[in-house]
């Protein structure tokens, strides 16, 4: 507004000026002279409308930083090379124009002054401070809780890989360590578990014999003598652990210290073993090898909890393989044994593209149906050989699947299989009562994004089901928009069944971003079918006890499973830790995902070395649930007890995927290479900043500005024309 007024004033002043020249110059020349004045002064007026310019400036030159953490605990006192390394790092940084930022362990934790090496307490925060910069760690590997393991305290994904660990080894003392313990964390009742161990020793000179024990609550479960051959520094051992009771067990593996060994902290380790109810027997019947059968089989084989027996029809009765039977691998299958005596030992039967009436004797057909009625689970997957006329009209299958017999699609001569029927998926609308019975519907609803986007579904057993006795879950919608049953759940007798009237779902594995969707789809189906057997909707993992900087005991665990989404800090949920009920106000909860939370807090465990955690919850959605785990409180070791532990430092470097150098003669060259790699190319961080500013003189950058200036001499000429004449 102000600018407009100024322009008006400007124009008026010029006009008046021209008016005043009228007497002297005459009307026409006065007007032209005034116009010239207006034009050559116009840049001044245009400055009232500045332009906004965005400019990039090198605001400040930020030298890159080399972070160095120096372990100055007691055990590092003789490490004279530290000063040389620091001097060299400073020198190289001068050449490369970087900046060294040193931190000492003693600065970061007072525990150092109490003769501890608090490396595991300090490292997470220090690495967070380092960010993406380059870093060096100078340490002998000593730590006050060395048995904890680095992975328990560090989040590896967030650590910069532009680092290096320089390790300091002392004189070689006699030491035997339990370098690695491999134990599959799940075992089954009545089944022994194997623990695989790797033992290492220094020095590797003479033949030596040591004893290894596996204990549970102080009771020796297994023991074995290990012999190191002369000059060998490693020995491997597989120890069978006898059958354990169902539940969570913390096994302790220990090398009994031989004479002369001073460093004992690395002689023992603990490992968690959960013993589950016996494995689940699954019988997979396939009417003909197919891609869908292949993908179902892959899923079943990928789950260790399933003991899978398959029964595939590779050849039809009328087929002629044109060879002597001895040239075929088709061995007799114990049909009578499986479908007679052993059927009750399976928990789920998967019938896929399989005709009961054509492949099994009537008694075996009846046994299969009785199996479901007595409480077994059935997953029925369709296909061209499934649900033939006899199956759905006269076979015992009619007891557990009721098809509308008046349906026009039911004809003896014609299969209900429509191989060319393309369809999309649409979730059915079961009643609230039906939905309550089939919680699988809600489970699959959580996958609706993937399922509804599933394109390329083709092939359907086109059936009309009777009105009652099942819960519709997902329908197939053909190109005409007709909805047909695709997935239904039913509850025949005491059992459960899921009916999938298509063999197309393998395409979900190939179509999606990952095979995960397909596995999840089947996993949810199997979990619903086997709910009583595999009920683990709530479980605890990664339960860790450790010390914080004040040497208080802190704990952390991960809570997972379908029931986790109902978890709340309320009276319906209880946490018992080391025998004491915890107040929720003292617990930190972080949500990682819909079925994944992290809980942490501080606790007092007294003298207990072993601590059990239990989380119990009550909710209408699942009734009552409980999950538990157990962990050892890592003992605190004084620096002198741990000594120099370069292998521990090496473990850290391996975990962080950075180089580890322990030979001090190589420090100089390796450090030089490390710094060249990280600083030579761009010692200065290319910090640029964008700035927006008003440019009042923008017109000076425009070429036509010079044209306007030409009106200045033009005005002079017009006004002095007579004098020039």
């Amino acid at each position: 507004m102000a600018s407009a007024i100024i322009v008006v004033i400007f124009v008026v002043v010029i006009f008046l000026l021209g008016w005043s020249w009228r007497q002297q110059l005459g009307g026409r020349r006065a007007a032209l002279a005034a116009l010239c004045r207006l034009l050559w002064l116009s840049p001044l007026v245009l400055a009232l409308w500045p332009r906004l310019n965005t400019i990039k400036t090198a605001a400040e030159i930020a030298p890159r930083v080399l972070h160095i953490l120096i372990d100055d605990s007691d055990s590092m006192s003789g490490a004279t090379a530290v000063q040389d390394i620091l001097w060299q790092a400073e020198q190289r940084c001068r050449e490369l124009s970087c900046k060294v930022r040193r931190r000492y362990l003693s600065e970061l934790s007072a525990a150092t002054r109490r003769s501890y090496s608090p490396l595991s307490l300090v490292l997470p925060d220090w690495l967070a401070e380092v960010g993406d910069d380059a870093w060096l760690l100078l340490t002998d590997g000593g730590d006050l809780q060395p048995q904890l393991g680095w992975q328990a305290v560090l989040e590896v994904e967030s650590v910069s890989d532009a680092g290096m660990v320089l390790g300091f080894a002392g004189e070689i003392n006699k030491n035997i360590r339990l370098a690695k313990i491999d134990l599959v964390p799940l075992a089954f009742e009545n089944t022994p578990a194997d623990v695989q161990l790797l033992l290492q020793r220094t020095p590797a000179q003479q033949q030596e014999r040591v004893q290894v024990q596996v204990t549970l609550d102080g009771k020796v479960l297994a023991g074995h003598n290990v012999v190191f051959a002369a000059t060998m520094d490693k020995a491997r051992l597989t120890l069978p652990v006898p059958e354990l009771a169902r539940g969570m067990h913390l096994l302790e593996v220990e090398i009994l210290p031989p004479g002369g060994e001073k460093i004992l902290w690395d002689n023992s380790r603990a490992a968690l073993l959960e013993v589950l109810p016996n494995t689940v027997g699954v019988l997979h019947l396939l009417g003909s090898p197919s891609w869908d059968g292949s993908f179902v089989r892959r899923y079943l084989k990928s789950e260790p909890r399933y003991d899978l027996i398959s029964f595939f029809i590779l050849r039809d009765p009328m087929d002629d393989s044109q060879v002597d039977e001895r040239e075929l691998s088709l061995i007799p299958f114990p049909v009578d044994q499986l479908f007679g005596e052993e059927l009750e030992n399976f928990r789920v039967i998967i019938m896929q593209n399989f005709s009961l009436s054509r492949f099994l004797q009537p008694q075996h057909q009846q046994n299969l149906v009785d199996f479901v009625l007595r409480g077994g689970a059935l997953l029925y997957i369709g296909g061209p050989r499934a649900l033939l006329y006899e199956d759905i009209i006269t076979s015992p299958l009619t007891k557990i699947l009721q098809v509308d017999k008046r349906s026009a699609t039911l004809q003896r001569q014609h299969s209900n299989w429509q191989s060319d029927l393309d369809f999309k998926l649409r979730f059915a609308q079961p009643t609230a009562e039906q939905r309550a019975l089939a919680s699988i519907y809600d489970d699959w609803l959580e996958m609706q994004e993937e399922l509804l986007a599933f394109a390329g579904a083709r092939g359907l057993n086109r059936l009309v089901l009777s009105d009652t006795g099942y819960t519709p879950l997902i329908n197939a919608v053909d190109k005409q928009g007709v909805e047909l049953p695709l997935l239904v759940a039913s509850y025949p007798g005491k059992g459960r069944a899921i009916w999938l009237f298509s063999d197309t779902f393998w395409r979900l594995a190939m179509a999606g971003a990952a095979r995960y969707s397909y596995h999840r789809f089947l996993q949810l189906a199997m979990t619903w079918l086997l709910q009583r057997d595999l009920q683990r909707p709530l479980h605890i993992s990664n339960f860790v006890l450790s010390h914080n900087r004040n040497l208080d005991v802190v704990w952390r665990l991960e809570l997972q499973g379908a029931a986790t989404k109902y978890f709340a800090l309320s009276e319906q949920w209880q946490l018992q830790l080391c025998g004491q009920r915890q107040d929720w106000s003292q617990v930190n909860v972080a949500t990682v995902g819909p079925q994944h939370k992290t809980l942490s807090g501080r606790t007092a465990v007294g003298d207990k070395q072993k601590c059990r955690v239990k989380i119990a919850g009550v909710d209408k959605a699942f009734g009552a649930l409980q999950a538990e785990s157990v962990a050892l409180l890592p003992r605190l070791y004084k620096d002198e007890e741990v000594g120099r532990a370069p292998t521990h430092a090496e473990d850290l470097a391996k975990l962080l995927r950075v180089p580890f150098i322990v030979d001090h003669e190589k420090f100089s060259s390796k450090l030089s290479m490390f710094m060249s790699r990280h600083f030579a190319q761009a010692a200065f961080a290319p910090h640029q900043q964008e700035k927006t500013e008003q440019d009042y003189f923008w017109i000076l950058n425009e070429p036509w500005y010079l044209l306007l200036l030409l009106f200045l001499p033009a005005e002079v000429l017009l006004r002095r024309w007579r004098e020039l004449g």
Partner: protein
Amino acid sequence: MKILSMALGLSLSLSATATIELVAVQPAQNWRFTRLAQEVQKRTSLTLATTLAVRDGSNFSTSPWLWVRNLAFVADDIAVAQWIRKGGMLVVAGGDAATLTTFTARTFGKSTGAWQNIPLDHELMRSFYLLDTLPVCNQQRWRSFTFAARLAIVVIPQRLLAYLRDGGADVPCLRQTGREMATRMFINLLMVALAGDYKKDQVHLPEILKRLR
């Protein structure tokens, strides 16, 4: 299974089966497999399509298996690796195993999956026919890449499909093997693709049943 079928005295028509497509990449677009499909249908419970489904580097990813001579059909080998991870099976017939080894090392990492010459106790040797041996060609053996406990890539030194197609000319290294053996090898490969190591379940049957009781 045969014993079961005979015991039941079945004489039924079970012609309704899902048709298995042979999927390959160009330039093998005009090949037909009428005779091979007849043989497969006559001998097994499977139905094989008589024509070749042809794909290219942009539309192969929904096929469960793919017959190729090399990986040149696709510019982005990461896509092939992803396809294998999702469940695809690659059959390289008449190709170079060394190139494939480099491909898997680059895309799967050296520690994931394993290459091997197909041993005599491999499921491929007994998935339907009992085979004594697999023919060698120019000192190249049949090789397999196992990923996630399944046969993910198989490298056949001979151009098996070229030999088995309608009017297929003699193919080096398969002339001596003969059409009957080539058909058996193809059927065994088909069975492994569709049924995996199904035969192993039968071997472990007594042990599994004992555990389940």
